[in-house]
């Protein structure tokens, strides 16, 4: 057994048990809340009501959905790979839950304050792709396979700008630990790292396949992508993984850029929830607004736009830290915002989303 930190109440196993329960309850409750929230918010944005029958304001709608999913028949395609088909939702959900092990809900309140917290998140979150690809492969369905291949391509590409923009934050905080990163944010890093935030947010949206990068389950093109052949609770698990990842990304953005649980007056955990909800609202808002990009445009965006800008952002951040170690960080806020605006405008002049016709 590892050495116990002094502030872990009740010893290693009690702490472990308590936090596993907290994380499960938190993730499940928040995902159900988010599903309700997304449907209501989308409804209002789309000039309709959204679910409002089950319970007050339709709050029990997710519960009703889960009951329906649990009682549905589980169908496995006749020529599908039965075991992989069964395993895929598990592989998709487990890493999503593991991410929350290092998410700081408030000061000192995380399951494990790993000193490589953010690195752990990057490593673990990539495993979900495997689950999605397994789902697409095992379904023995061409739509599913197309969706799964799109997923792998996009995640492999977007991992790079995402990690590069995280490094900017790590440079400023001087630590990989999620707790330390929050503690370092006397100024929220969204102000110090506006470009990094933009790149991270776009990249993260692509990684969790939210609009406008929801190509892998583009319902107007490939029906439902990788989960076309799933039904019942297996589909429910894939859905849980997807929304859990959206929740995880919201929590990570909150921690890295919005100074985590810190805020005046209100209790820390409430600040954390408010910020997570706000980030998720932006994700929903984008979904209600923009059309979907095409696969080659998705790739072009990652490699021609996000990747070079992430490198530049890293360079600028490093130079700033080297040159102005003593200057108050507030000075850098307007400078960095100006740099972001100039860079984004210049780069979008140089760069055009391609037309993409292939001669055959």
């Amino acid at each position, binding site marked *: 057994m590892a050495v116990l930190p002094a502030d872990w109440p009740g010893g290693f196993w009690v702490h472990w048990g308590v936090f596993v329960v907290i994380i499960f309850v938190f993730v499940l409750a928040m995902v159900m809340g988010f599903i309700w929230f997304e449907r209501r918010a989308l409804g209002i944005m789309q000039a309709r009501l959204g679910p409002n029958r089950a319970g007050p304001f339709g709050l029990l709608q997710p519960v009703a959905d889960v009951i329906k999913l649990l009682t549905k028949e589980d169908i496995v395609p006749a020529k599908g790979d039965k075991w992989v088909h069964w395993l895929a939702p598990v592989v998709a959900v487990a890493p999503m839950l593991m991410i929350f092990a290092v998410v700081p809900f408030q000061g000192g309140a995380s399951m494990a304050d790993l000193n490589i917290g953010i690195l752990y998140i990057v490593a673990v979150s990539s495993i979900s792709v495997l689950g999605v690809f397994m789902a697409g492969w095992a379904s023995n369905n061409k739509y599913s396979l197309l969706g799964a291949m799109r997923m792998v391509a996009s995640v492999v590409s977007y991992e790079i700008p995402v990690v590069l923009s995280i490094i900017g934050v790590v440079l400023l905080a001087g630590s990989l630990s999620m707790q330390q990163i929050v503690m370092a944010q006397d100024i929220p890093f969204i102000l110090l790292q506006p470009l990094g935030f933009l790149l991270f947010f776009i990249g993260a949206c692509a990684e969790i396949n939210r609009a406008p990068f929801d*190509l892998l389950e583009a319902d*107007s093109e490939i*029906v439902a992508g990788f989960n076309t052949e799933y039904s019942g609770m297996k589909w429910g698990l894939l859905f849980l993984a997807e929304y859990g990842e959206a929740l995880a990304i919201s929590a990570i953005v909150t921690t890295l850029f919005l100074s985590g649980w810190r805020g005046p007056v209100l209790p820390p955990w409430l600040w954390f929830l408010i910020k997570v909800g706000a980030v998720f609202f932006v994700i929903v808002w984008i979904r209600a*607004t*923009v*059309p*979907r990009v095409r696969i080659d445009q998705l790739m072009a965006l990652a490699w021609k736009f996000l990747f070079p800008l992430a490198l530049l952002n890293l360079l600028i951040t490093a130079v700033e830290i080297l040159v102005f170690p003593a200057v108050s960080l507030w000075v850098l806020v307007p400078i960095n915002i100006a740099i972001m605006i100039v860079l984004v405008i210049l780069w979008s002049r140089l760069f055009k989303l391609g037309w*993409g016709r*292939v001669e055959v």
Partner: protein
Amino acid sequence: MVIKTEPFVVNFGPAHPSTHGVFRMRMTLDGEVIVDMEPVFGYLHRGIEKLAEERTYTGCIPLTDRLDYTASMTNNFAYVLAVERLAGITVPERAEYIRVIMAELQRIASHLIAVGTFLNDCGAFMTPVLYMLREREKILDLFDMVSGQRLTYNYMRVGGVSQDIPEEFIPALKKFVKEMPGWIDEYDRLLKENEILLARTKGVGILPKELAINISASGPVLRASGVKRDIRRADPYSIYDRFEFDIPTGTAGDCYDRYRVRIEEMRQSVRILKQAMEQLPKGKVRSDVPHLTHPPVGEAYGHIEAPRGELGFYLVSDNSIAPYRFHVRAPTLINLTALRDMMVGWKVADAIIIFGSIDICVAEVDR
């Protein structure tokens, strides 16, 4: 090492979220790129042309409702026009105006669906289509007032329309005409200049001018390719020569132009509605025609500018109470013939929006 790849065949449809009905495309894909595409028709074939030969001339009107069910009024219009030409029946002035008002309202309603679902195919998750259904709802309310129906109106009759418009119709129409331009501006503010939409639709699925003429395309698909042809101007029927309106055309013939042409046509329809509403005379709405029409032996072709293109009805009479031959020139079927040329070489995602930009209604394609 070179990995050996081979193209594979994917069936899009007949039951697919984006085929707008039961249409099937057999696509040969090389990765995401379309190497070949073969449309398969006929899943919604109901034999309407044959069924019509067993019915009286008036009895055929409900059948025409069921051709292009998103534009029933214009189907009625084209059919009764053909019968009137066949039998030499004149239509009272007031009925002509009511017909034009209905046809233009129908054009707006149909284009709202076309543009909305097209943007939905582009991946704008449900928002545009729901905004546009909101306005379509108001048009359906207007139709409900005059015909009592919301989808299959069965409103026009040989020699006029089935009944006069109720009192509350004109105030409601005035309100609609006043508000509609603002709503069209709202749609434009939402997505007209959106970078992703431009990247997805500009230059995609080009239908060259020559090809469009060669396949005898019509409607917004033809006009987006830069051909200024509109039956309302080219062969004025009813009273369209009394109204002022422009014919919006595109230049490139791509998906974006087809989308823009439809939006602009909505504005022009509002213009026509405004004029027709002001000039609406009083009088009869139906001339005295016998219940069972016996047109003299002969043939007639009535065509109008329906929302989706040139809709024509070709009728042959043998002096009985039923048409001897009843043929529909369905604009969407003919527009679809260019589908393969427009699609090959593009990606799967483009195929969906190219198909959506043609705006078909399978009930009319298969009949």
